[in-house]
């Protein structure tokens, strides 16, 4: 009976597996859930959901799937309140789902009861009630078989009793969490690690020592190796000032995480877009500039280039000479960007603006094109994707 629900979960984007479904069946068989729907919900949740970010999604699917069953069954026992039809229909039952309810028994009876109620309501409607005007009578057509009849009372306002556990959706804010702490960023950045043994040999290589000792006829022959270091090199370019002020905190966090995570980290600041100069100290940005050409010459191409910026500016700042808001630039920013990308083939752009807003800013599109679509939102998920692209 849970198979359609299982597929609904998978359609809903949850990675529920057969193993988990079987576990749930096993649990049900051993009588864990007892008779209560709440228990069943808890059990299904603990067996099928493995990520708190999916809890809300599970609640919604569970609600959509089982609400009908549960409600319509309990509706037989009690009066249907007036507002029940004002609810928007959300779910249409498919043929197989309807069969499912039938197989659970009582559907015919239930529908009969519902039909009776419907007719009763209909009469009242003729009395001049407004509700059916917008909804129309057709949903309650000849069969009275309409899914809306089953869906009534979503949110549990129906009898003003306690809200069903899954309708509370307590895990709402955990879904697609955008909260990024330094710790999380570090973990995301850690995926970029590439270990290599470099430098002085100061660690005992146990395996080699044993091997060599054995070959040496049992006399100790100590072997040393250099410690493993993270050999990834990162060049971080941060947009600073202007529209980036809104994102200072997240940039701070990214920066501090990156700094502690990578031994070879070089960072530079730029304003709005990259031109012939960048700088390392914001207070002395006019006095101490580093020519971009020097950067590309100094750091070899095995550095990974990460831009952090909202890419929100006037398109002129990217494509025209002299477009910069701060100074006269001989060459357009796009040319400098191309030069940087040529030197550093592994490059991404992290954008602290939510992805949904990107489409409304032409300059973001321009930058995306320049970056060959390697622009990612500055969230854990975005960072993950970005790191993948960098590897």
């Amino acid at each position, binding site marked *: 009976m849970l198979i359609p629900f299982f597929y609904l979960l998978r359609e809903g984007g949850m990675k529920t597996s057969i193993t988990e479904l079987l576990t749930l069946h096993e649990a049900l068989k051993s009588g864990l859930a007892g008779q209560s729907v709440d228990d069943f919900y808890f059990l299904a949740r603990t067996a099928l959901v*493995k990520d708190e970010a999916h809890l809300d999604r599970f609640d919604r699917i569970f609600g959509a799937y089982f609400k009908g069953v549960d409600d319509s069954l309990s509706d037989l026992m009690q009066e249907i309140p007036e507002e029940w039809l004002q609810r928007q229909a959300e779910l249409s039952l498919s043929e197989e789902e309807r069969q499912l309810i039938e197989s659970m028994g009582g559907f015919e009876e239930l529908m009969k009861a519902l039909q009776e109620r419907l007719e009763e309501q209909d009469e009242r409607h003729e009395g001049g009630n407004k509700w059916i005007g917008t909804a129309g009578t057709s949903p309650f057509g000849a069969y009275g078989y309409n899914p809306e009849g089953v869906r009534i009372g979503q949110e549990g306002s129906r009898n003003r009793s306690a809200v069903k556990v899954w309708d509370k959706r307590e895990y709402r804010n955990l879904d697609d969490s955008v909260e990024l702490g330094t710790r999380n960023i570090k973990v995301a950045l850690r995926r970029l690690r590439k270990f290599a043994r470099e430098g002085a040999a100061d660690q005992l290589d146990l395996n080699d020592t044993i091997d060599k000792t054995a070959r040496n006829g049992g006399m100790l022959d100590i072997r040393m190796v250099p410690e493993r270091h993270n050999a990834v090199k990162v060049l971080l370019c941060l947009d600073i000032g202007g529209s980036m002020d809104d994102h200072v905190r997240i940039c701070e966090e990214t920066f501090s995480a990156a700094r502690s995570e990578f031994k070879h980290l070089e960072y530079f600041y730029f304003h709005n877009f990259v031109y012939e100069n960048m700088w390392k100290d914001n207070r002395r940005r006019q006095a101490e500039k580093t020519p971009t050409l020097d950067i590309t010459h100094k750091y070899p191409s095995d550095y990974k280039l990460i831009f952090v910026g909202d890419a929100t500016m006037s398109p002129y700042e990217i494509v025209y000479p002299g477009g910069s808001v701060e100074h006269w630039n001989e060459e357009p920013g796009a040319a400098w960007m191309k030069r940087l990308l040529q030197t550093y083939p592994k490059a991404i752009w992290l954008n602290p603006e939510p992805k949904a807003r990107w489409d409304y800013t032409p300059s973001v599109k321009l930058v995306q094109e320049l970056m060959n679509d390697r622009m990612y939102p500055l969230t854990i998920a975005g960072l993950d994707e970005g790191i993948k692209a960098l590897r």
Partner: protein
Amino acid sequence: MTDSRFTGTNSYIATDDLSMAVNAAVTLQRPILIKGEPGTGKTQLAIEVANALGKPLYEWHIKSTTKAQQGLYEYDAVARLRDSQLGDDKVHDISNYIMPGKIWEAFDSEEQPVLLIDEIDKADIEFPNDLLQELDRMEFYVYETKKLISARTRPIIVITSNNEKELPDAFLRRCFFHYIKFPDQKTMAKIVDVHFPNLKKDLLSEALNSFYKVRDVRGLKKKPSTSELLDWIKLLLAEDIPLEALRTENSRSAIPPLYGALLKNEQDVHLFEQLVFLDRRANPQ
């Protein structure tokens, strides 16, 4: 099959969904993975489950350097090497140098034990994958002695995670999962009650009010959690803070006493003081 069901203990309040998750794990003998905000009693759960069901507890605390193998056993090659140089007789039996790990110990237990694998996310990303077979079959092979170690009774395995790393799907599929959400005020009152049974009702409600207010301050980097609340109440009691000090007419016009126990981050303390200051200026008394 297990006649004893876990419903919390007199020192641990378990919500219905948590009890269900634990009971499912106990009945089906699968590991249970517990996640949640720091300080919501994840580690405590294993201890309480062991207490409530009267089973021995084995704790395996994971560090960033922990390897899966260490939970099974370790072969002390260096000791054997040393002994061989010294001509010790022990050296001829390799089993002298096999040190059982926590999982082995739990597998060896006479009655069904509770095995806590604490903060599994601290270890390397591959760590959970290395334990798949062991947790599934509850057996492993000792290559040095060519012996198969299998569990006498499948232990109840409680695994906690702080979400610092994502765990592999294959691992997750074998576990039950529960996310301990932050308790609401009602549950919290119960939790405080089991820890401080003689706490006056009004002090408790005032303390809880202040606590939730602090939690609601926007922009806090680290929100205080249950364990911080318990520490704070302990302090309040120790210092014998009068009820009036907690009771404030205006929500933010006073800093709760001993707030150092609640806020653990310098910036948070700053932010909080600033808010209080702003509020005082806006509503002079």
